[in-house]
Every structure is written in structure tokens, then in C-alpha cells.
């Protein structure tokens, strides 16, 4: 299956860097997320995941490494996590790693809230963002 790659750019809108690997199931979204059409952007990721789940059927490791996202993006991230949780419930192998900037408590809190919302286990790691 093909990879989904989107190069990140913070200009008028903030497009996160996306790398979804169709051969080993390692996925990463990083950078900043504030988009003109949030649903449209994240639906690409969700569609890719559904295709991977249906066709490749292997494990998925999803790494979130965002340094900023708006509330609209936070709803879309929840939707991604719901897809992953559903896959896990159907005995797919899922690992979610959540990297939060060490000076940003609210991004760390988000992961805790997502765990409550979805029932997924999310591994949390702090990191020092490069500026």
C-alpha cells in the first residue's frame, strides 16, 4: 500500500507534517495544526487508515508529535484515535505514542483526555521542540 506523505508548512494556515507508512504501519503527524478545512485534511488520514486496516491488516504505530493544534484539529485527532480504538477492538495491533513539548501542559493533558474518551492506552513522552 502506498504511503501518505504531506509536507508540513506554517504559513497562513499551519499544515502538520504527515508520514503514514503503508508497508510497516508506522504513522507520524508532527508540527502544527490549524487548517482552512480541518475535516477535509484529516479525512485523508482517516481514509488511509481505513484502507490500511482493510487491506494490509498489520499493526499500526501512530506517533503524535504536535507542538500546537487548534480545537478544531483536536476533534479530528479524536476521530483518528476512534478509528485506531475500533481496530484494536477488532484485534488489530495498535500502539499510540503521544509526544508533548516539555513546556506545554495542555498538550499533555489532551492525551489524558483522549485516553478517557476512547479507552485507548496512549504512551506519553515529553520532548524538547526545536525552534
Amino acid at each position, binding site marked *: 500500500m502506498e504511503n501518505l506523505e504531506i509536507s508540513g508548512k506554517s504559513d*497562513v494556515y499551519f499544515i502538520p507534517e504527515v508520514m503514514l507508512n503503508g508497508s510497516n504501519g508506522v504513522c507520524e503527524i508532527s508540527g502544527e495544526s490549524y487548517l482552512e478545512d480541518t475535516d477535509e485534511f484529516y479525512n485523508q488520514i482517516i481514509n488511509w487508515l481505513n484502507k490500511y486496516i482493510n487491506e494490509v491488516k498489520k499493526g499500526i504505530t501512530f506517533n503524535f508529535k504536535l507542538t*500546537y493544534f487548534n*480545537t478544531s484539529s483536536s*476533534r479530528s485527532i*479524536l476521530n483518528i484515535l476512534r478509528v485506531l480504538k475500533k481496530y484494536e477492538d477488532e484485534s488489530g495491533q495498535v500502539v499510540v505514542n503521544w509526544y508533548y513539548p516539555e*513546556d506545554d*501542559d*495542555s498538550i499533555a493533558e489532551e492525551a489524558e483526555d483522549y485516553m478517557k474518551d476512547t479507552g485507548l492506552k496512549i504512551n506519553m513522552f515529553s520532548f524538547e521542540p526545536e525552534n
Partner: protein
Amino acid sequence: MNLKGFNFFEYHTQISQDNIILSYKGPLTDVLLAEFSRDIRQKLQEEDSKVGKKVFAIFMELAQNVLYYSKEINHFGNRDKVGTLVIVQNDTEYKLITGNLVYKTAVQKLLEKYEAISTLDRDALREYKRKLRNDPQNEESKGAGIGLVQVALTADNKIEIKIKELLGDMAFYAIFVTVKKQSEEESNNATPTE
């Protein structure tokens, strides 16, 4: 309209104080918002990266609210939404203020949300945000409908809203958010463990 009440020189003196970081009233576009937010981020993060990021994140949510929901339209040009964005500071805090027109029919709902936000403690506020985020997206909402709740969480402070009914079917809706420069979290570093 009563023009006597407006003193341009007084207004100019007010907005020329050096404690004003941003004062804007006019049509708002995504390009303009990007310019403002870039400046704010650069300027404030030099002083204190943690607090600067908070102010930036709050500003983004508030300004997006104006951009999505303002009912005042600039009929000149591209029919952009009109709003007011202000950031001021003193030695101990930043204050962010945004204002825009809303329909009077929307006021009740705004007040209800505000009531909820202003009475909840931090944990209950997180709970409330999760509840709103889990609800199906309502049709008018371009965002997640949780902007104001997130603003209160990020500010870690009570927010204030004021609504002034105008003649006709509009009301002026203003939001006031205060961010402390010296965050209390530094003494009790409550970051979650890995």
C-alpha cells in the same frame, strides 16, 4: 449616530500607550490573522516561551471565533467578517479582549456556555470540554465548539464575557481573558508522568 461621544484624540492616546501589544478593529481575514499571530508569537515567546505560547494559543482560538461567528460584515470589498482584537499587558499579566456582533437570538446560548465555564473548576472544565467534543458537530459550528472552554483551560483563569444589546437584532459580544505572566505551575510542576 451620536458623533459627539467619539473623541479621536482620546482614542489615539488610549491606543498609543506602550502597554498595548495589539489593537485592531476592522475586517478580519485568515491572512491578517496569520500576520497578527506570527508577531504575537515572536514577540511574547522571547520574553517567556511558556506564557507566550499560552497567549498565542488563546489569541488563535478567540480570533478564529470572531472569524467564524461575527455577524458584522464589511460590505466594502470581500464581505469579510468584522471584529475587534486587543491585547494589553501590565507587569503581572496579559489581557486579551475580542469583540464582535452576534444575533440577539444567539445570546442565550452564549450565556449558558459562559455560565457553565465560569462555575466549573479545572477538572470539571476538562470533563465539559470532553463532553462537548464528543457531541456531534452542530451545523453552525465551523470549529469544534469548544474554543471558549479551551481558552479558559489554557488561561488557567476565569474568563469574562459581556454582552451589550444594540438596536435591531444584533448584540455586541465581548470576551476578556487574563493570563498571568508568572504561572503558578512553576512551583507545582504538575506535568503527567510518562
